[in-house]
């Protein structure tokens, strides 16, 4: 009796949170779907009625659609590869006993606390500026012609900036995973005749499998929607227009809410495809 009672009370008390979260998700989703079937131009006549799938067709047939999809995937893929590889190396380095370990670990995590807008501006003005940037000075020191990073190597630059931001996250998750590895396993492998690289490949890497999966899944979700880094650096120029950025341009620069909404629905579909794909490839690691 008591449990049944407390269960219904619990449901009642959880209801506000559930309703709020559901509304939080459903209202924008419904509005996006609603606008995506309308011709809605706020500064050029407002709501101009239903247009069926016109917006969807226009968004996809735009010459910038496939380049945007490609840019999105290149940024997500590039950042994932860099953060996972460097993250594993850094995590193993930080796992070594050393002087000042606590301070070093906090310093490594620091980039994660910097707001994306701020870090992108710092990179743009302090490092990548072709005249006064640190990298330009470095290039000149070696007698090379400085690169104007954001226009000549725009994609590389953005991948670098975003990787710098997300490396601490990957490192942190992988470090905790490495710390949970039973040192007797490594010793057993050493006795079994496995040299350092083989110990890494046969023991450490499989042990990290689950952590790597988590890093990839979480980062993909966030990386698909990066915006600030592109907004303050290239503004979507030089081939760095991602799907997210393209939606922003359609809605705010072209003032075409319907077209942008249709893009938003495509973004949802793309995110889900990527998620299913990732779950298939790496999700089995989570069961083991």
């Amino acid at each position, binding site marked *: 009796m008591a449990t049944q009672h407390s269960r219904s009370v619990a449901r009642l008390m959880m209801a506000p949170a559930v309703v709020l979260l559901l509304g939080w998700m459903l209202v924008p989703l419904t509005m996006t779907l609603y606008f995506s079937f309308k011709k809605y131009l706020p500064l050029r006549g407002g709501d101009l009625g239903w247009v069926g799938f016109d917006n969807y067709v226009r968004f996809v047939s735009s010459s910038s659609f496939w380049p945007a999809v490609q840019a999105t995937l290149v940024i997500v893929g590039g950042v994932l590869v860099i953060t996972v590889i460097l993250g594993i190396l850094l995590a193993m380095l930080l796992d070594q006993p050393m002087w000042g370990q606590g301070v070093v670990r906090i310093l490594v995590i620091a980039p994660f606390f910097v707001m994306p807008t701020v870090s992108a501006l710092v990179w743009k003005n302090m490092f990548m500026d072709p005249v006064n940037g640190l990298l330009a000075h470095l290039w000149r020191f070696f007698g090379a012609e400085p690169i104007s990073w954001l226009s000549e190597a725009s994609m590389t630059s953005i991948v670098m900036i975003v990787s710098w931001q997300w490396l601490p996250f990957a490192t942190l998750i992988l470090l905790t995973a490495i710390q949970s590895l*039973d040192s*007797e*396993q490594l010793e*057993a492998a050493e*006795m079994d005749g*496995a040299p350092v690289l*083989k110990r890494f490949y046969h023991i450490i890497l499989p*042990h990290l499998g689950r952590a790597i999966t988590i890093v990839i899944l979480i980062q993909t979700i966030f990386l698909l929607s990066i915006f600030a880094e592109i907004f303050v650096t290239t503004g979507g120029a030089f081939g760095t227009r991602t799907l997210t950025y393209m939606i922003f341009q359609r809605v705010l620069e072209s003032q075409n809410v319907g077209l942008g909404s249709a893009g938003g629905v495509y973004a949802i579909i793309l995110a889900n495809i990527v998620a299913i794909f990732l779950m298939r490839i790496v999700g089995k690691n989570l069961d083991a």
Partner: protein
Amino acid sequence: MGRIQLKSVTKSFGDVEVIPPLDLTIEDGEFTVFVGPSGCGKSTLLRLIAGLEDMTSGSIDIDGADATDVPPAKRGLAMVFQSYALYPHMTVRKNIAFPLRMAKLDQAEIDKRVEGAASVLNLTDYLDRRPGQLSGGQRQRVAIGRAIVREPAAFLFDEPLSNLDAALRVGMRLEISELHERLATTMIYVTHDQVEAMTMADKIVVLQAGVIEQVGSPLELYRTPRNLFVAGFIGSPKMNFIEGPEAEKLGAQTIGIRPEHIAVSESEGDWSGVVSVSEHLGSDTFFHVHETGLAETITVRADGEVSFRHGDRIHLTPRSDAIHRFDAKGLRFE
């Protein structure tokens, strides 16, 4: 072949000397057990032999060749760890085959040896499972399997049975002893359990605080312990120690008498006391006797049929030829 010789080996962690200079020879084919209370340095000593820890000074010879600076993999030793240290993401087959794959043997030879080890250890049905799906005893056998396929010069066991329940421990103890009889390879076994040491060993090395207190066969240690520590450590229940006038009568600082060397009687005996607790094991009965005026508690072993209750006054008679005498330094003398 596996003759292992330690020559004035020491080990310090920072300023703390865990093992003061130590000499020890383990003969080929011998089952040697390192036994001692926890923290006595027995595991460290094993890890020094394995090469997992570096010696602070001294040298180790394996089969007459200096192995001091030889890396662990090249010493030809195989180790079974306390946690088994199986590779969780590999099947049993791959676990056992791992050292062979690292040694780059060809696949046919690997398969042959893995099958052989699996049939010796009754693991044939489990070869395609992962360690997580096995029971404690089976994991233990996989760990042993991984060690035997390498055909090492010596096996090192680091408290391998401490994670098993009591019944399984007795079974595995037998299996390891049988394995030793069959392979006739040198085995070094670390334990804190003196029963394991007594039942399995050819030679027991009793350690305390990194110092070897005594080396000998189980019965030697039982019959002629060198000092109070060994006398108290070997044998279960513990030897009774008596100080004071009773010891002085025999010209000793302390005398020791094992529970099984004291006769119990209702009516007469040299000593008398009151039964505090009686433990009935069926085959034996242990009485913990108080108020004897000799020591706080005297433990006595009697036949399983003898029955006294709490509060009964009983009389005890030690077997005079089984009394051990110890001097002021705690050393035994005849």
